[in-house]
């Protein structure tokens, strides 16, 4: 049989049900892989081996009694942005370096309810701000993929780089992630796995450290579209503790994967063809269109005219909200405190010592765009543009059922590239931020390799609360691509 760490979630579930493998064996195999590779990849900030084994034992007991739930015994990595009771939750920031929440996020509570095993807390960009995982206060994450004939360390993408790297390197069957401007989809694409940012409001934000409240949305990363669907099913659902949570039923996402795409109209937005975009990205996009056509879908050229304003809009709205959301990290009640002569001194010392450069940069930008005299020119205008971007999509849904775009403008880059040019770094989000601004679901599917052997992803965008169609299209792409490549660094089979 397949090695335990090579299983899909669906496959592991079947194997567990048939008692071909025990939950403890499955968890131990992953913990072994983590022990061997995490010192190098740095995908986990905290490994909770003991707790994972306890959970696995409980899973085996449930399985023995025939009381399996959707995720009983499935070992997962949890992005270290989700608060977990009694387990350090850092947001990859020094300011929360020793923070142990006395409460559980709704997402992790839902996963625990469904029987999941938590292997540990996955690394990320500090407060989820970044596209390369380089801003983590606990060191960057290495992408398990290598360019052919080049051993240089590459970035896993960000901010959910630890989650994506862990899943790609077989150090978890799946992982939770969050996406504010592409933080699920870009690292999934960079690491050759699938990841979905669901509709805003689909997954509760309660207990997840906030970056930009109106954009943040949690979702899963996993090695197949179906696995993402299984995880999202458990993570989703109305939560009265989050006022922006949507009171809508959670459909059977996994079942939707098998729907097929026959007769679906797939929008191809011309504005996603950027000047200077690598030819292989364009080629992959055309390939994706061809696969969907073969599967019976109809490509339709569409226009999303305000796309070019999405990135600047995002880099006003997100920092504005972040500047306010991060004000609570002041050294007074929890987390890092650097005592000072007076209150102001305490604030300044604490925040100077606690926040990294990128977080500080965004707090400053956000504070600036909300300031008296600048609010109308920046924040208010950005909100108006945001409404126009949303309207672009609303109009598109009159013509198409889903939209296909590249996931990222490039494959994974080196750890030493783009780090001193924030604007070049921000361009990573160019295809993904629109979904956050419009609140719509977006799925990244591994679809091919670039000329140097690095994975590239395609993105499927869908109507609000129509993740089912997104999954169906994603599954069709997955079948067309038949993506079987594996990273060179991964847990021994």
């Amino acid at each position: 049989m397949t090695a335990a760490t090579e299983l899909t979630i669906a496959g592991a579930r079947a194997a567990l049900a048939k008692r071909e493998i025990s939950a403890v064996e499955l968890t131990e195999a992953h913990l072994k892989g983590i022990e061997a590779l995490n010192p190098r990849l740095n995908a986990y900030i905290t490994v909770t081996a003991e707790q994972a084994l306890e959970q696995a034992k409980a899973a085996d007991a449930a399985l023995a009694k025939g009381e399996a739930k959707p995720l009983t015994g499935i070992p997962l990595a949890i992005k270290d942005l989700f608060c977990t009771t009694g387990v350090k939750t850092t947001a990859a920031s020094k300011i929360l370096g020793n923070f142990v929440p006395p409460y559980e996020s709704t997402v992790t509570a839902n996963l625990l309810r469904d029987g999941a095993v938590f292997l540990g807390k996955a690394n990320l960009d500090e407060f989820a701000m970044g596209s390369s995982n380089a801003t983590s206060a606990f060191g960057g994450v290495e992408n398990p993929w290598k360019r052919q004939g080049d051993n240089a360390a590459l970035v896993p993408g960000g901010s959910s780089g630890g989650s994506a790297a862990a899943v790609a390197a077989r150090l978890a069957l799946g992982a939770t992630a969050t996406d504010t401007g592409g933080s699920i989809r870009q690292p999934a694409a960079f690491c050759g796995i699938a990841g979905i940012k669901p509709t805003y409001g689909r997954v509760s934000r309660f207990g997840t450290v906030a970056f930009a409240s109106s954009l943040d949305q949690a979702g899963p990363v996993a090695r197949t579209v179906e696995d993402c669907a299984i995880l999202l099913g458990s993570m989703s659902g109305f939560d009265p503790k989050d006022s922006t949570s949507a009171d809508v039923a959670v459909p059977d996402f996994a079942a939707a994967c098998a729907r097929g795409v026959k007769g679906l109209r797939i929008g191809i937005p011309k504005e996603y063809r950027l000047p200077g975009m690598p030819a292989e990205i364009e080629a992959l996009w055309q390939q994706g269109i061809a696969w969907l056509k073969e599967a019976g879908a109809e490509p339709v050229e569409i226009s999303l005219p305000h796309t070019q304003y999405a990135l600047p809009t995002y880099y006003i709205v997100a920092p504005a909200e972040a500047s306010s959301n991060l004000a609570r990290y002041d050294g007074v009640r929890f987390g890092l405190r650097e005592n000072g002569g007076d209150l102001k001194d305490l604030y300044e010392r604490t925040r100077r010592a606690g926040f990294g450069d990128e977080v500080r940069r965004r707090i400053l930008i956000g504070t600036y765009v909300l300031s008296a005299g600048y609010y109308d020119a920046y924040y208010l205008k950005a909100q108006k543009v945001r409404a126009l971007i949303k309207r672009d999509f609303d109009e598109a849904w009159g013509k198409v059922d889903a939209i296909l775009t590249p996931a990222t403008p490039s494959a994974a880059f080196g750890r030493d590239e783009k780090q001193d040019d924030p604007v070049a770094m921000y361009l990573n989000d160019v295809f993904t931020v629109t979904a956050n601004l419009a609140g719509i679901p977006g799925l990244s599917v591994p679809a091919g390799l670039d000329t140097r052997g690095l994975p590239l992803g395609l993105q499927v965008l869908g109507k609000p609360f129509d993740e089912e169609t997104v999954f169906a299209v994603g599954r069709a792409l997955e079948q067309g691509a038949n993506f079987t490549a594996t990273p060179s660094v991964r847990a021994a089979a």
Partner: protein
Amino acid sequence: MSYTLEGETGAWEVVIGLEVHAQVTSLAKLFSGAATEFGADPNSQVSFIDAGFPGMLPVINKECVAQAVRTGLGLNAQINLWSRFDRKNYFYADLPQGYQISQFEFPIIGKGEIEIELSDGSTKQIGITRLHLEQDAGKSLHDQHPTKSYIDLNRSGVALMEIVSEPDLRSPEEAGAYLTKLRQILRYLGTCDGNMEQGSLRADVNVSVRKAGEGFRTRCEVKNVNSIRFVMQAVEAEARRQIEVWEAGEEVVQETRLFDTSRGVTRSMRSKEDAHDYRYFPDPDLPPLVLEQAWVEELKSGLPELPDARRTRYVGDFGLTPYDAHVLTLEKETAAFYETVAAGRDPKMAANWVTGDFFAGLNRTGHGIGDSPVSAENLGGLLDLIKDNTLSGKLAKEVLEAMFETGKAPAEIVEERGLKQVTDTGAIEKIIDEVMAKNADKVAEYRSGKEKLFGFFVGQTMKAMQGKGNPAMVNDILKQKLA
């Protein structure tokens, strides 16, 4: 004659607007389930939301919204079916989130109006600009430790209504009357307990001065004044200061000031230049607050009768004097007490007893209406005993005194002390016969025309009966026998 202050250059008008922060009466906070009870141990009523912990999110408390709508209805104000919460960003140790959730651009309640009563009997309409909901901050305690400050977050997140008046007030008396009336309405509605000592009601006072016929001059805001008396004092102190500034040829600068209650002056807290840039923006954690008209109507139909309506009814239906009606409706509890006493009885007699001997009794024994030893039912019972001639008015006063001392029902006291009025004709005749026999000379004088001796016979009879004789019967029988 309108109120003015005399300066060296003549008379100055005073222009006042009030921003009142009223703590919403509710069991839980505005955005969390934590309790709101006053006087609990520090930091014992704090949820993770109130303490601004990572990942915590606000969820609106429907009852607080209902209270704001009730208040809006009580202020005859526009209820905005669409309103929005914004974040007011600033750093302070007792502000856990680093921002206060408030309503900046779109408040839940729009323009309204209340009528104030002035000492000369006149009334005046005062405009309400708006009412919005917001969170309170925690409390910093700077006097507990030589070098440290302590923080109590019990108040953090408690719902406040900020009620802003138009600059329609023109004297300390009007400012005081406005605050009194507003507090009265809030208490009637049960939307704020109005307790200024506990900080449930605090006022920021905006003051400017001008010469007659001018537009508005620069105003200053006197922050956090916590009694009606201090509001009135602060208005005058600040107005006099501004007059001096103008008359010295200088400009009044817009700034925030504090009222020093011990010295009776205001002093600068921060200038406009030092004012915070609060960086207001819509709170992305909260969707707009959308109310249904039907729900507003439901709240409206459940509103209690307000003081103005009640006063009108007391005068119109009960025939009370406007003054008695005013006194009886000042506090909701008093009015409820009065109505219980008056139920099924003579309303004027009830009003006389409540505002007269009953209030005097409360004052004498140091009680309020809430903890009165004499219940409304018992006071009503006393009135019944007068009505059915069991007690004379004079005896009733004695019984009421005993009721204040013992808290007992009037019938019980009458029984114990044998105070029952004698209405037995035979018994009264017998006493009168004895009195006449003892005072045969006076009887003769009376019969020969000295009619003012009648009072002497009444006095003697009542004395012999220890005051228990029914006065009307004593009179009648005496008249017959002396004839």
